[in-house]
């Protein structure tokens, strides 16, 4: 009998505990959700994607070295596949917008958020890590200079394009204002900079290529195509229709000591190395329709293997003819692979060919080997998924938030106003509550009842007269000679509306009744006998208060003070109407923020988190007092 009872007790104990924990999790979920979303980018939020975002792993680099295929993806991962199609090595930089370059025994991986890494061909082990100089990288300052409405999508980091010789590497970042190419000396490890003169008009540097025959550096931008002579440091330029050069592609190929092939989205240009003039253009304007935009290119002998949005086309260098009038692949609906010969052609991002087969890299880590002879895809390789992005791009929201909204101002104002309110209200409430509890003076009942009555009055009934009063004061003092003389010209009337003092006094008066009510309970809990004993010993009233009652009541006073602070921090209506631009508090700031960023939920969540943190910290530090304060109210009633 006893056993079954205690067993029932234990079972119910555990069930209730489980229910309680579930409750707790559900209860805290919104807070977690707020913080979690403040780390995500807006594009994911708006697309309804709830989970953690993984980085894109588009295959942007394919190279065969010594029979091994190196597959590089945009998230900084590089996989080495041997000729038996087995993946034998793997390395990931876990970056965004990565680029690759290979020389005879190493592979270089570069991105603007993780720097430069040199890997060995043999085993993809790290040989060297190099930090890129800040001078030539896209920075947060660039975000700050943008006008208010153009907050950059935080997930976008510009590509760094890379090329190299035996002694040097050249890199340039794709950023709105960057016109510098970094030159890295491989022996000394030193960086120097090549600044492109101002009279070349372009927005972004898109590609680089080193011409070892002529010791030239070819720079592809979205405005002009530049030939930089490394010996005499001269610049020549050529304008072609460089409307769009896709990231990750080698836009410039050295065909021979005399010819350079420039790949743009809408055409291939054969350019003379010496004179920087166009020898030949492949694809006339009307040849290319939008689904034939050029995404990737590889060259074998005299044939260009061009990956476009609708498939792979082979163009002969001399004749300019397309070998196949149609694409080598059929189109696929909605990315569904219908059979093993077909592939989403519009996602071709990299191509590699050795004449017999063509290796195609596409988005989502897909690599396919296409055999030109039998015209089928003979093999497919799937790269690993991209790394989880949550914190690598997450803090950007918090950074983005501040330049557009003057958070420091709001925070400072809130702290000042709420702090002073707390102090003033605490002092007044303590004094009043003590007097009400200890002294039965005429009018005590009236006073305490009227305190209770003030709780009934809605805030707006104070707000309307106050608002108008402040306006009147401003208008009348604007016209008064006395004040004009006092404050000098440019005086527009005493602005109580926008001052700290006005709001502090109003808040103190607004929060006072409730504080008095709570403190009464605390004071009532202190035994009168202590005070009476002190009075008998000849202590004055004020002495009793200061030396005996006050120390005992400190916990209650602190609790009340915190209560006041939390409520004042929260207050929106008064602050909205009675503050001016310079004195707006945090709630008003967030309100305006929401009005301006209606669909930027990521920024809004970041702002919300920042607004919660001060109160959260305060709560953590002082929770014992708060809890005690609240429960004492219940007991004393």
């Amino acid at each position, binding site marked *: 009998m006893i056993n079954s009872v205690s067993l029932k007790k234990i079972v119910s104990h555990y069930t209730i505990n489980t229910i309680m924990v579930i409750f707790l999790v559900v209860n*805290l979920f919104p807070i977690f*959700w707020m913080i979690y979303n403040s780390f995500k980018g807006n594009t994911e939020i708006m697309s309804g994607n709830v989970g953690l975002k993984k980085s894109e792993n588009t295959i942007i680099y394919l190279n065969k070295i010594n029979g091994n295929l190196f597959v590089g993806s945009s998230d900084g991962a590089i996989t080495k596949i041997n000729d038996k199609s087995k993946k034998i090595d793997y390395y990931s930089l876990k970056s965004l917008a990565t680029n690759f370059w290979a020389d005879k025994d190493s592979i270089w991986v570069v991105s603007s958020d993780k720097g430069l890494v040199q890997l060995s061909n043999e085993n993809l082990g790290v040989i060297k890590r190099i930090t890129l100089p800040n001078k030539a990288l896209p920075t947060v300052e660039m975000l700050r200079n943008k006008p208010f409405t153009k907050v950059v999508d935080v997930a976008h980091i510009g590509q760094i394009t890379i090329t190299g010789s035996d002694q040097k590497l050249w890199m340039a970042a794709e950023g709105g204002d960057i016109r510098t190419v970094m030159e890295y000396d491989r022996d000394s490890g030193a960086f120097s900079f090549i600044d492109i003169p101002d009279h070349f008009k372009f927005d972004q540097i898109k590609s680089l290529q080193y011409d070892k025959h002529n010791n030239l550096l070819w720079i592809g931008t979205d405005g002009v195509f530049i030939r930089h002579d490394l010996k005499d440091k001269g610049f020549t330029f050529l304008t072609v229709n460089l409307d769009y050069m896709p990231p990750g592609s080698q836009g410039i190929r050295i065909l021979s000591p005399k010819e350079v092939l420039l790949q743009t989205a809408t055409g291939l240009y054969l350019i003379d190395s010496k004179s920087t003039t166009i020898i030949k253009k492949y694809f006339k304007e009307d040849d290319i329709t939008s689904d034939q935009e050029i995404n990737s290119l590889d060259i074998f002998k005299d044939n260009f293997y061009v990956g476009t949005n609708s498939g792979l086309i082979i163009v002969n260098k001399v004749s300019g003819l397309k070998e196949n009038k149609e694409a080598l692949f059929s189109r696929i609906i909605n990315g569904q692979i219908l059979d093993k010969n077909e592939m989403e052609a519009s996602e071709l991002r990299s191509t590699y060919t050795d004449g017999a087969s063509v290796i195609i890299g596409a988005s989502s880590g897909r690599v396919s080997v296409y055999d030109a002879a039998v015209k089928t895809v003979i093999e497919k390789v799937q790269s690993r998924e991209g790394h989880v992005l949550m914190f690598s791009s997450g803090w950007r929201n918090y950074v983005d938030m501040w330049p557009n909204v003057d958070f420091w101002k709001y925070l400072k104002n809130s702290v000042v106003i709420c702090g002073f309110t707390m102090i003033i209200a605490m002092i007044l409430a303590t004094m009043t509550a003590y007097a009400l509890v200890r002294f039965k003076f005429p009018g005590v009942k009236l006073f305490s009842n009227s305190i209770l009555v003030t709780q009934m009055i809605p805030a707006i009934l*104070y707000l309307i007269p106050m608002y108008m009063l402040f306006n009147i004061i401003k208008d009348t003092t604007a016209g008064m000679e006395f004040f004009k003389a006092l404050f000098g010209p440019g005086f527009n009337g005493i602005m109580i509306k926008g001052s700290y003092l006005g709001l502090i006094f109003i808040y103190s008066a607004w929060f006072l009744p409730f504080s008095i009510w709570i403190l009464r309970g605390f004071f009532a809990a202190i035994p009168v006998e202590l005070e009476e004993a002190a009075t008998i010993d000849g202590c004055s009233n004020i002495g009793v208060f200061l030396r005996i009652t006050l120390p005992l009541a400190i916990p209650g006073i602190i609790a009340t003070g915190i209560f006041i602070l939390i409520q004042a921090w929260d207050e929106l209506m008064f602050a909205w109407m009675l503050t001016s631009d310079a004195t707006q508090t945090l709630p008003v700031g*967030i309100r305006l923020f929401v009005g301006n960023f209606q669909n930027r939920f990521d920024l809004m969540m970041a702002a919300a988190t920042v607004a*919660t943190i001060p109160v959260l910290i305060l709560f953590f530090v002082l929770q014992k007092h708060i809890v005690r304060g*609240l429960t004492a*109210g*219940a007991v004393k009633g």
Partner: protein
Amino acid sequence: MSAQSLVIKIKKNKFAYYFIAPALIGMVLLNFIPFMQGFYMSFLKLNLHTMDRYLSAPFVNWGNYYDVLFNPNSPVRIGLGQAVRNTLYYSVFVTIGQLGMGLIVALMLNRDFRGRSVIRTLFLFPWIVPTFVTGLLWGFMWQQDIGIINYLLYDIPLVKALFFNVFHIHDIINIINAIITLLINVLLFPISYTLGLVGVEFKYAVENIFPLLPAFTSEIKPAWLTGPNTFWAIVVPTIWRFWPLSMLMLLAGLQNIPDSLYEAASIDGASSWKKFWHITVPMLKSVWAILLMFGIIYNVYSFNIVIMMFGNGAGFPGEWGDLMMTNIFRNSFQQWNFGNGAAISIMFMAFMSIVIYYWHKFYISSEEIYR
């Protein structure tokens, strides 16, 4: 009390008067006087044009009150009836929700177990989140397409299957809605019939009288921030944010109930349910009373959560989301009808005072029974 003893008493309590002086002066200046001004302003025609004249604006006697109550063409009346109705339902639902949840969790926390104070502190977190953040956060969570709540219900196959196919909750909700509709029809039938006899057409639609529970269909995600669902969209965050307070106070009250009472009842053979009803509930009455009073007052004057949740629109929370405070605020500061705003506030306040007065009487009487 004779005048002489009065003077003596005042002299004796000089200290007390010094102590309450600052607060008294402050409250007179910043509470009492503005309130009187507000009251006086409800009799003035104060709007954008006359606000410069402040208290010398034209005196219209009961004009504002008439406008609000009887004038069908007055712009202040737009949405006022709905605001009243919403506030009424809102305060009832929210207070019940807060007290109910507070009680359940307080009962759960009333046992002794390891880590109890940690869990109790964790439960307090929603109260720490400022109200304007709550409005913002839940405005995001309630989004129809990208909000997490709709996602949880519709995009997780297991949950969706449980919701629709196993528990048929949407059908249950429809049944509940049907019952509510029937009840309202039945209750209002006598009124509509009597009015019909007198020749007055009493047109009502259930959708205008009571916010039915959100209708879930298995294909389309419900819209929470428009339509009648806005009511539930504002009720839930308010309960979420304020129930920890109730929980804390109820817990303190529960812990003050001596165990001996329970033991005595057990010896007498009382079941748990009986123990709950006859010991716990009565002993908590004083806590209930306070929570109820402060809860109702606070919720009736609720403003922050609603105004922040609907910031994306013109700030108008919709038919079912509008509360008295947001309505008055809009009238006063966005349409500049100060006089009318003050009048509505005064009437509202008067109504609440009456309610609280009777509650106070009840509380005093119950106190006297149990003290």
